[in-house]
């Protein structure tokens, strides 16, 4: 399904994360609810993918499964070369720590730690020294140099989310998952964050998967995947806010028809 977009790229790139026939179901028998229904997804290295869909479409479940936070009922998930559906909790935790970054909608930071301590937390937990040059670059990019000693309660919502972004990037993960990262922010702070995410893909070569319901946020991505009823129903390369909105309207209509 991704051959068309792959062809548009100048250089062939390896896959950062991939799901094959990923199914997630809750309950069993008559009460069985299928959240993801044999989904196939591939995210290439250095790509910024947005996942959209109405609530209950399974977009958050898809992201949680891809990130190793939730377990799949069947199918395969690969982060880099690692097949994660059969990993035990310990290995999975290590994988999240070393290869995955997270940005959540809210409550992203530990209130007891300073901004800098929050940023380096995943590496501290792993007992690794951060790469100072890279760390400085990340902090510079998010524009937090003056606020590193502050506690989260002393920062604005936008600043807190920038700290969260810096944390997600600081350990140079293979892939960053962002769950509605601008959901709690005003449009100016949201634009800053999205601009920063875009910049980290273009400038730092980061791979990002973002779940959002905001067409403007989605327009920052390289590609938008549309989910409905646990299936990928469409995808839109090189999106703009208008084209996403347009597609969503049609898609809403389609949704209503079915």
């Amino acid at each position, binding site marked *: 399904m991704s051959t068309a977009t792959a062809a548009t790229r100048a250089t062939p790139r390896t896959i950062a994360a991939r799901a094959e026939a990923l199914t997630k179901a809750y309950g069993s028998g008559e009460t069985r609810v299928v959240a993801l229904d044999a989904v196939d997804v591939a995210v290439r290295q250095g790509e910024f993918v947005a996942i959209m869909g109405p609530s209950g479409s399974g977009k958050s479940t898809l992201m949680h499964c891809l990130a190793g936070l939730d377990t799949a009922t069947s199918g395969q998930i690969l982060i880099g070369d690692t097949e994660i559906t059969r990993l035990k909790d310990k290995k999975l*935790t290590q994988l999240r720590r070393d290869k*995955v*970054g997270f940005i*959540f909608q809210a*409550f992203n930071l530990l209130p*007891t*730690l300073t901004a800098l301590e929050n940023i380096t*937390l995943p590496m501290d*937990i792993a007992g690794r020294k951060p790469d100072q040059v890279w760390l400085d670059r990340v902090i510079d990019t998010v524009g937090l140099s003056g606020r590193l000693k502050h506690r989260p309660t002393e920062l604005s919502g936008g600043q807190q989310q920038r700290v969260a972004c810096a944390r997600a990037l600081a350990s140079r993960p293979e892939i960053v998952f962002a769950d509605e990262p601008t959901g709690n922010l005003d449009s100016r702070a949201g634009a800053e964050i999205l601009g920063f995410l875009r910049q980290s893909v273009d400038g730092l070569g980061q791979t990002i998967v973002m779940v959002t319901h905001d067409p403007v946020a989605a327009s920052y991505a390289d590609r938008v995947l549309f989910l409905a009823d646990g299936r990928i129903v469409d995808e839109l390369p090189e999106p703009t806010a208008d084209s996403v909105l347009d597609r969503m309207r049609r898609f809403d209509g389609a949704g209503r028809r079915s």
Partner: protein
Amino acid sequence: MFKTSIRNFLAHKGRMALSTLAVLLGVAFVSGTLVFSDTINVAFTGIAGSTAADVTIKPKQAFTPEVEDRGLSGETPTLPAGVVAKVAAVQGVRAAHGQVSLQNLTVVDKDDKPVGPTTGAPTLGQNWYDDPQVHLVQGHAPTKAGEIVLDQASARHKDIHLGDPLRILTPTGSMPGTVVGVVTFTTGNPGVTMAYVDTATAQAQLLGKPDQFTGVTVDTAPGTGHTTAQERIKAALGDGYSVATKEEQAQTAAQQISSFLSVVTLALLGFAGLAVLVGIFLILNTFAMLVAQRTRELGLLRALGAGRGQVLRSVLTEALLLGVIGSTLGLGVGIGLAAGLKSLISDFGVDLSGTALVIGPVTPVAAYAVGVLVTLVAAYLPARRAARISPMAALREAAVPAEPRLGRRTVLGAVLLVAGLGLLYGASTHHATIVTAGALLGGGIVASLLALVVLGPALSRVVVYGLGAPYPAVFGAVGRMSRLNAVRNPRRTGATAGALMISLSLVGAVAVLAASLTTSVDRDVDNTFGADYVLSGNGATPIGHEVTEKVRAIPGVQAVTRQRYAVAHLNGFQLVLSGVDVATVDQAVKPQYVAGSTADVAAGKVMVDETTATADGLRVGSPVELHFLNGKVGTLTVGAISKPPAGAGKDGGSWEVSLDTLNRFAPEAQDFALYLNTASGADRSKVQAGLETALAGYPQVTVQSQADYKKSITGQVDTVLYLVYALLALAIVIAVLGVVNTLALSVIERTREIGLLRAIGTSRAQVGRMVRLESVLIAVHGALLGLGLGLAWGVAGQKVLELYGITALSIPWTTILAVLAGAAVAGLAAAVVPAVKAARMRVLGAIATS
């Protein structure tokens, strides 16, 4: 609003469980103590009342000595046999029995092992007469010398049967015999060993006075009241006898038992009170956290129109429920505890099976009063805080509790601390009287304890943060988070650690005092113990003259210094007067004189210790009028004043005269202890062997060398120390439950944080470690404060007790370090369940929690 309270209470069952447990434990200890002491009281009074004869006649004594001093002198007051006939002739007397009853006996089996208990309950020897309370179950009554009847409990306990040889050891000699009968008692047996012989043998061999009795018991004729008989007997005998009815006997027995029991009961209730006090911290924390978690909910109630009073009452209603449930369970557990104790002591030969558990009206009242009051008091502060929540709280984002302002609190705490330390310093430098020094000490203890409780939150910030300083370096990011989490809510950490602090402060103080006492005794023994061996009886009874003669005959023994005791009254207060062989006392016990010398004692004057002399305003030359038990009165002159010996706190002080002087006033006093000095050049091992041979037949006599003597004192101190530790354990357990409680609630509060940590790659093990490290910090913090406080109290206490001979200060560092290490281990143990809970938290669920 009441409905909301009940719903809330039920909704937080789990979180309430530990608080309920704390109330339960405290109340159980209180009610268990009350039930047990009531039961013992009723049992012993019942036995004393029903075993007493209708009327009992005894020789009159000048006063009634304290129970524990009764056996010291070995004197047994007697009345002539003629009295029995006189009494029998009184109208309305059906039968009068001459009674020979002796307490200071030892009964040994064929292996020379004591049959009776060596501690606690006495061994009684008595003449046989027809007593309706005593029933022969085997064999026959004693009729001639050499025939002994034993009580069934002792026979069973020591596996003794009819025909087995026994020996009765008395202060004057020993009487061999054979068991010819076994008896039981109508009223049960509270652990006493009873040996019966025929009257003539009892008089001649046990009492050593033919034609004398220790008392007369009377059965009244039907139709004659006990009081009527009593009056007639009094009239017939004239003065010089005490005549008591069955009812009066029972009452006296009850008074004696309850005055002894009330000391024990008060001590146990003191420990229960401590447990309850510690429980307050736990409950306070629980409610503080519940209120904090429910800020939005309570704000909503306020927004919907609930008044402050209603919110306050709704929280207090939950506390009331907790108190009632905890008290009810605690009362039940307490009764079970008492039942357990009752059956436990029956294993030690105290048979209370005849008495059911006595649950007096005070017990449930005390149980509920303690349980409910404590919970309400503990919940009041959080409830008031809840009532102050503004309706706006309902609308705000999830509550980030504001940093508590501790300014005023810290100032108050600092003032208290300065006052407390000042008082403690005052107590330790004040050398006038024990009363003022004790008052200063008590004030200092209370003020410093309050100070640390008030300062708790502020201190926890500083101390916990300081203690945690090595954490980041040693445990990395996990260590840093533990350290920060521990100081996150200073009020909560302060209260949690405070509970531990209170219990461990007492451990610290008691440890310092015990170590100082042991060291002082050690030093004292080194300074004064001049004898090579000291011989004394088991229990506070004399060893008897027979032993003295045997010991004197051992080759290589150069001097035997005898010591006897007599109980006397001075200005209405009881004292114990010691009489010694003045010729050899200097070499046996090296008296330390402040004034006068042994020559003054030899000259018939009296020696008193300095502390007592100061308290009573006595100096050399002062006259003292002593009233002895047998009615003799002697006016002696103070001739010497000694340094107070270690542990001289025994009521009445330490008084000494020459043996001759003592014999003048208490001619029947028996040898209580012997101090042996071996001849120079004598072979110690031969003397030792000679002693062993000579004393083989006297298991009631203990031989101690200087080292043994020290060890026995240390052993006694240790026994008391371990008992106190065991009782403090209850408070410590509750304090540790408090740590569990705080951690469990903190874990729930931090669900989302833990979820986030897990999401970004913190392993389960790391999350668990984080909780455990925090717990260790809180526990060690509490222990540190408690031990510090305890050290200060102990040092001040030692200085105060210098007046009572605790002259050496000794700080048991190993104990203190062990307690600190123990606190760390307790912290780890407290964290087990919360850590597992935190580690098992499901990542997605945790993140989704709002």
